[in-house]
């Protein structure tokens, strides 16, 4: 059977009746599923894969843009680079409606409680991209007020190097994050991380 290209590109684990999972022999007998006569155009997959497929292709970013990285973030969302190609074009300025925090720019200690509060207000499951040298390490701002990497306070999934990173780099990080989301569990994928990070 020829599967449409869209599905293979999405890396959705799709099983046909010819695929090895269902045609393997169980206890010396052909499996029940494979012996059943499937209608055409039916996809079979795991719930985890299906849910994660939906999650990763409709990330709603919360732009926490505090510096020049924010300009690149805007360029990434704009028409030339077009984040919509990866399903992440719906920038939400309310943490309640977003599930991907993109921290773009340096964060000073007075801003940190604000960032933390926004992060806590985002519903689970949620992910975090630390965009640029400043958000990841403080960058050149090794001073008394600048937090030396937001990962001291937030669980970061992906770090994007650069000062500021090109939109292509941010798009690559988005693709990488999608791969990571596809590998996660279904019910509460970020629970382990959350337990580690919250007191």
């Amino acid at each position, binding site marked *: 059977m020829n599967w449409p290209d869209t599905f293979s590109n999405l890396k959705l684990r799709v099983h046909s009746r010819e695929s090895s999972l269902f045609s393997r022999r169980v206890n010396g007998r052909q499996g029940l599923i494979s012996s059943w006569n499937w209608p055409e155009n039916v996809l079979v997959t795991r719930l985890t894969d299906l849910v994660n497929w939906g999650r990763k292709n409709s990330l709603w970013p919360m732009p926490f843009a505090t510096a020049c990285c924010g300009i690149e973030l805007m360029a990434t969302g704009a028409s030339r680079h077009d984040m919509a190609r990866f399903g992440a074009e719906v920038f939400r300025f309310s943490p*309640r409606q977003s599930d991907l925090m993109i921290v773009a720019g340096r964060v*000073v*200690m*007075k801003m*940190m*409680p604000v960032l*933390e*509060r926004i992060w*806590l*207000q985002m*519903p689970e499951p949620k992910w975090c991209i630390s965009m640029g040298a400043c958000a990841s390490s403080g960058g050149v701002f*090794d*001073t*008394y*007020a*600048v*937090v*030396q990497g937001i990962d*001291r*306070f937030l669980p970061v999934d992906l770090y994007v190097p650069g000062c500021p990173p090109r939109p292509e780099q941010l798009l690559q990080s988005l693709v990488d994050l999608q791969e990571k989301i596809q590998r996660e569990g279904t019910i509460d994928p970020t629970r382990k991380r959350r337990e580690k990070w*919250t*007191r």
Partner: protein
Amino acid sequence: MDTLIAGLRDRFPSLATSAFRGQARLTVERSSLFALLTALQEEHDFDFLVDLTCVDYLDYPADAAFRPLARFCLVYLLADTRAVRRLEVRSYLAESALNARPLSVPSVVGIWRAADWLEREVWDLFGIRFDGHPDLRRIVLPEEFEAHPLRKDYPLQGRGERHHLPRVDAQFLALGPNR
């Protein structure tokens, strides 16, 4: 401008005058600072406080052309917007007086309303108090910050304040349908 300065010199004998690139600069003792600024605003029409800042001359090179009289120097930049004149007023504060107790300078908020936030900024970053300020709180740094980081004896990287913040407690977040 010359007649103005001559008149002020008669009235404030301790006044030292100099010029930098054509701009007059008055240096006055702290005791007569407030009287001088009041006179400049009320009698000489300096109606606009352009800036109020402070300089820390700690470890200033001894062989420099400019010799600071003490460690801290308060700088008032004034302007007369009608006659288009500018004037700089300086007043030095010795470190020994700072260590004895938080040294205070009379606030000029009553003379120029613009001094409100400027004096808060000097208090925040240099730790110089302004007597009579209506609301002398930190303006740039968080309230729990204890040091005054623009003092030259404060380390650039700080003393760990940047990573020891009061954390936000999830318990006190406003609850919505998603949590």
